[in-house]
């Protein structure tokens, strides 16, 4: 009898805990506050078909989709302004919902009202305990963009080789590098590297700043790593400028500058021998701003 009562009280406590976590889960962007309880109804209306009732990406449509819908229970998100391994900010999720994901079945939900989107974000956060257990991470600070010059583009081209971006994205950025066919995501699903030559919008935004953020924070859950610890901000902008020239059909300042230079990159500078520097902490403070 006592054992039954104990079990009942445990179940009761569990129900209260789940219910209170749902009620308490909020999301904040600017003046907006999203509530998970409201988001739950909206999730049922808009998202459940792909992401599933439990948010595990196992909705009715999931078997037919490529790439697969996000598993919110894992709380691993591609588009973040936070460094790799961290949870995204509420604003990151809010923007993802509004932007959608190019070349996937996830549409842009921009037509929904701001309140609807923030309520959905609040509910999405209720699927994983990570949102309770982890503190908000620092946001990557992005320094002002450096001028687009042929030197910048050429240096970006050198970095493209040095960092071995070509292994996945291919020498011409077609997403057909030698490793491309072997890539899988964190769910062991085959994944294709971005094809720059298509000229389409990047998964996590369309602007140069978005491209900078993508490779500095990495695309969690995919083989695309974070380069924040590897390159300096000024180099990162050079890489952005070079990557833009791989989008040959897209009108851009980078393509204009390259065209003005005869369509050819400058030859690589001979390596300068630099004095040994002590190992640096992962740089997310936006140090370095502009070309010297």
């Amino acid at each position: 009898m006592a054992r039954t009562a104990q079990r009942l009280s445990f179940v009761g406590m569990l129900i209260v805990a789940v219910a209170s976590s749902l009620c308490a889960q909020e999301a904040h962007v600017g003046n907006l506050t999203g509530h998970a309880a409201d988001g739950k109804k909206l999730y049922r209306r808009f998202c459940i078909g792909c992401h599933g009732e439990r948010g595990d990406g196992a909705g009715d449509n999931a078997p037919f989709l490529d790439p697969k819908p996000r598993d919110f229970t894992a709380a691993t998100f591609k588009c973040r302004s936070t460094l790799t391994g961290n949870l995204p900010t509420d604003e990151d999720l809010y923007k993802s919902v509004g932007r959608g994901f190019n070349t996937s079945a996830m549409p842009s939900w921009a037509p929904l009202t701001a309140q609807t989107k923030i309520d959905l974000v609040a509910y999405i956060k209720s699927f994983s305990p990570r949102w309770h257990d982890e503190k908000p991470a620092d946001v990557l600070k992005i320094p002002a963009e450096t001028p687009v010059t042929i030197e910048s583009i050429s240096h970006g081209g050198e970095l493209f080789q040095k960092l071995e971006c070509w292994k996945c994205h291919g020498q011409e950025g077609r997403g057909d590098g030698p490793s491309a066919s072997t890539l899988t995501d964190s769910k062991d699903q085959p994944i294709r590297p971005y094809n720059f030559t298509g000229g389409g919008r990047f998964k996590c935004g369309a602007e140069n700043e978005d491209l900078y953020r993508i490779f500095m924070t990495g695309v969690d859950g995919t083989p695309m790593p974070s380069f924040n610890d590897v390159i300096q901000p000024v180099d990162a902008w050079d890489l952005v400028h070079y990557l833009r020239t791989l989008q040959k059909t897209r009108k851009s300042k980078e393509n204009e500058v390259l065209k003005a230079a005869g369509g050819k990159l400058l030859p690589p500078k001979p390596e300068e021998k630099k004095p040994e520097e002590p190992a640096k902490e992962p740089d997310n403070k936006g140090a370095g701003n502009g070309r010297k």
Partner: protein
Amino acid sequence: MYAFAAVSESFKRLFAVRCGLTTGLFVLASVVSLTQPSAAIPAFARKFGMPCSACHEAWPKLNNFGQVFKDNGYQLGNDRDSPIYKDPSYWPVSFRITPHWHRENTDRMATDQAPTGEQSVTTHGFDLSGLDILTAGTLSKNISFLLTPSADNTASFHFESAWVRFDNLLKSSWLNVKVGKFELDNILSEKRILTLSANGGLYQAYHYLPQGGLPASVDPSLPSPLGTGIGDNQLGFEVAGHSKNSYTRYSVAVLSATDGNVSLPTNRGYDTFLTFSQAFEAGGLGLQRVGAFAYLGMYPTYGLTSGGTFLPGTGLGNKMYSQVGFYGLWYLKKLDFTTMYTHNKESAYLATATPANIALPTGAHDPSWNGFLVETHYTVNPQFILINRFDTIRMSEQPLGSLKKDFGNLNSLTFGYRWYPFMNSRDGFAIHNEYSRVTSKGISPTGNDSTSSSVFLGFDFIF
């Protein structure tokens, strides 16, 4: 001999009007509701893997996400819209039909058996709605189409819609061009109406006409216009545009003045339809929208004949009719109200079926009338919605001085619910229950008020 040969005596008109109106309204309501195609298209749900509720408040009524999808030419804009991304076996076809039981009653209908000339008439039984075959999608990026072979409940087919649309011209969502037969850009769409019964399955404001209910037709074998142009799909071309989230929308359409009938049966005239709307967010209450529209139409009153038979397309003596309207969609979370005001006017020649080359009957002048509508929905959840509508028409000017000021005034009340027992991305099914009642002032054969009512229990499915 024209169908609209002039009849000058007012009393004859009045009698004809009363008999005609009672029967005419009954027939009109039945015809409109039984052939009303809708644009809830599970082929889209199957293509994009979304439940109906993503695009529909409760299908077939669109929400703003669905409106944007439609405005974008049935494209989501995530590089997966073109048919080349779909499995070749994907076929963009959907069918909708509604087996149902219904009961209709008109309390004062003219019959040959009634001693007073009018009696209460009740019919009921199991029945079918019309069938809609909806094929829609994209032919290529930024080229969309809709083809809707549609049948009445005797399987007599016609093309309810057949159009192609060039979307996002000049890479701008503000410029889209549609050509063919299409529904006018009505936010309050009768093709997505949530009520289905004979009396409740139409917006009175879109179809009401004074006098005998139907304006003149130059050929008696042709269907006359079923209203003021707005409720029916029309043939022509449309230029439309919208902001990215469709909060701001406009549309301009130039239409053949044939009320959507093919083969140019009437004349060489053109109608015009204009609409504009603006939506705005009101915090957590939802998206509110206000808008206005205008329809400027013309219809011939006589035409050329050969051997006494009307020559199609040669209608003459065009006379104007018009409708302007203002509407609002107001959301208070789960509760929403649609309000609409309309003002209508038509030529006395059309209202009295008088050819323009002869004199109008004594005391005839251009009739005008106003419509007001409040439609309320309570969306309990995406699978259950309660519906209520009050639709009223008030004559402000009668076509003949001999008619009472309130003759033909109309009140319509409809309420019901739709329950969707399941919701997925493959098909749609709704259990639909509705009651509707329409009362018209002084239109019975003896000059009394007449009331028609409908009870409808349907199993509305679309696959």
